[in-house]
């Protein structure tokens, strides 16, 4: 064997290898940081409210640290090449959410409404369950391409999950939206889990059908118009999302599923026309349904004129519609936070009362950390989405690409819908801020989502196998021309 045996050896000095370092130590360092920040916040809240470092500081810090440590060790063992940022970012958001929930537990105003101080320990339990599911995903799902086999089973599964809240006796109507089911005393939001299952179905389906959707089209006014029969799938998904809107009266879930489908369709086909169609169809659907659905009308009115809703609520007007002051209170919370915020534990976001620690949790951060803090938090969400898209770019199989895009797109949409709703940019919908808001289903499902993304990124970033593992290369001798 001469020195020309392996061409890559000559260039190792000038051309680096692809993604060889596993970056697990980077992840560990960031994780320590990501656990330390919530502990700092926790101490800060305690000092501000009770003038003392909270008694639970050690156990709380150890609890979060232990969960993060277990997750890290599992990643180190079972997904060694996975993205180093996703786990620390999610841990930080989860930790900050726990602190905010604990901080709202301390509020006398909220204690008067609910039974005192039970939300934070429960949320810690949900986090533990979420990490357990995350670990389970990494252990059981050795290769994300296995999911491709379950394309149509996923479709059925997602439909069942979406329709469960409508089953009499199982579904629950909580504050106007029917997106919960009640099993053994626990309220579960199946829509959160449907998000992941549906992404699997869309990815598997679009991978097979995307050529027909992309190529068979006519050009009209600079846009590619799809053939009539290719409109089938988008019409079906649209119809289902409209049905969700009508029967479950939940704008958020409906928007999330249709939006995720349009994003994946666009990525699969590279046709801008799908985005135009998607926007037109969702606008038409939302306006059409809003014209007769009172729950949605209320939401739109509260969005257009939150002050009027606030006054009606204060006056106690009873006209068949629930008037709520929470939208206005949330805006005031953001406003009084200013640039640098009032400091953790020193705001009055508990005035939002109901749902202050779930849908409106962002308002607490907006008031107590100010614009500077909110920007940081939104950036952290943005980084999670960016890592998801980066994973999609790096993935070598189309299914993995589409799945990663779908999951991160759904995550991004959810953040947009909730943050936009709380800040008054769009009508408020009944969705939860991923990882931060109080709610078991949301935390657990989003940890599973991060697990799937880590699995895809592990496959994508894993260096190609060593040459020795392929005996074929040795056997074939080539006759040079």
């Amino acid at each position: 064997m001469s020195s020309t045996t392996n061409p890559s050896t000559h260039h190792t000095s000038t051309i680096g290898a692809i993604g060889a370092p596993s970056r697990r130590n980077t992840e560990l360092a960031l994780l320590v940081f990501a656990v330390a920040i919530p502990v700092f916040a926790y101490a800060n809240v305690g000092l501000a409210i009770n003038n003392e470092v909270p008694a639970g500081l050690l156990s709380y810090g150890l609890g979060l640290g232990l969960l993060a440590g277990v997750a890290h060790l599992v990643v180190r063992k079972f997904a060694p090449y996975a993205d180093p940022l996703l786990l620390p970012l999610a841990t930080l958001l989860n930790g900050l959410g726990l602190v905010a929930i604990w901080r709202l537990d301390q509020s006398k105003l909220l204690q008067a409404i609910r039974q005192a101080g039970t939300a934070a320990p429960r949320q810690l339990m949900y986090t533990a369950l979420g990490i357990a599911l995350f670990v389970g995903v990494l252990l059981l799902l050795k290769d994300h391409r296995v999911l491709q086999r379950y394309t149509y089973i996923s479709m059925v599964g997602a439909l069942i999950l979406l329709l469960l809240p409508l089953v009499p006796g199982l579904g629950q109507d909580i504050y106007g939206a029917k997106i919960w089911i009640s099993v053994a005393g626990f309220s579960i939001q199946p829509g959160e889990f449907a998000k992941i299952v549906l992404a699997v179905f869309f990815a598997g389906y679009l991978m097979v059908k995307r050529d027909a959707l992309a190529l068979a089209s006519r050009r009209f006014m600079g846009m590619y118009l799809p053939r009539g029969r290719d409109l089938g799938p988008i019409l079906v998904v649209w119809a289902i999302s409209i049905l969700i809107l009508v029967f479950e009266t939940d704008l958020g879930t409906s928007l999330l599923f249709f939006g995720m489908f349009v994003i994946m369709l666009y990525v699969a086909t590279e046709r801008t026309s799908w985005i135009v169609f998607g926007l037109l169809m969702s606008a038409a659907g939302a306006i059409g349904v809003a014209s007769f659905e009172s729950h949605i009308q209320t939401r739109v009115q509260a969005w257009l004129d939150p002050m009027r809703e606030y006054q009606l609520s204060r006056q106690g007007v009873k006209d068949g519609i629930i008037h709520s002051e929470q939208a206005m209170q949330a805006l005031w919370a953001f406003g009084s936070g200013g640039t640098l915020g009032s400091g953790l534990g020193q705001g009055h976001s508990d005035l939002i009362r109901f749902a202050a620690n779930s849908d409106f949790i962002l308002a607490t951060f907006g008031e107590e950390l100010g614009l500077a803090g909110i920007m940081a938090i939104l950036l952290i969400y943005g980084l999670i989405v960016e890592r998801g898209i980066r994973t999609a770019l790096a993935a070598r199989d189309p299914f993995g690409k589409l799945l990663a895009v779908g999951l991160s797109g759904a995550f991004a949409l959810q953040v947009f819908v909730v943050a936009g709703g709380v800040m008054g940019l769009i009508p408020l919908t009944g969705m939860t801020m991923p990882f931060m808001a109080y709610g078991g289903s949301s935390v657990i499902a989003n940890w599973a989502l991060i697990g799937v993304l880590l699995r895809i990124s592990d496959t994508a970033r894993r260096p190609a196998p060593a040459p020795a593992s392929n005996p074929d290369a040795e056997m074939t001798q080539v006759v040079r021309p």
Partner: protein
Amino acid sequence: MSELTLTVMRLGFLAVLWLFVIVAVQVIRTDLFGTRVTQRGARREAARPQTGRQAAPPQQRGQQGGGRQRRNAPTKLVVTEGTLTGTTVALQGQTITLGRAHDSTIVLDDDYASSRHARIYPDRDGQWIVEDLGSTNGTYLDRSRLTTPTPIPLGAPIRIGKTVIELRK
């Protein structure tokens, strides 16, 4: 708790939060894990981003074989056309399989590709060879359909269905 302490904590917390964001962004910056090409002398063209659809620069063609191989050994495989455009795979002496099969190194999503369509591997001299694995629609090197394992000149387009790949420095 004094007002001053709380103010310091408030600002300190924001600083720490932003520090985390900045550190995370720095990690991303050092995490650009594609091929890292250090430019050498005048060979700047080879280091350009791999998004172009144009064929490789003409001076790179037909320089395989003989003593020039040491300098012109390709280091990466770039997909230049098709749904996977922009994908790169580092050539590190491993066999690269192409096809629709899920376990291929590059999974082609193409109706004209066979499950195990072709493979690219280095021979004993380090010359990269493309071999058609009995595909239905054939593998083309430049314009000619492959019948035997053939050495790949640098920058020559290899066409499989709608996908075009080439080897680059």
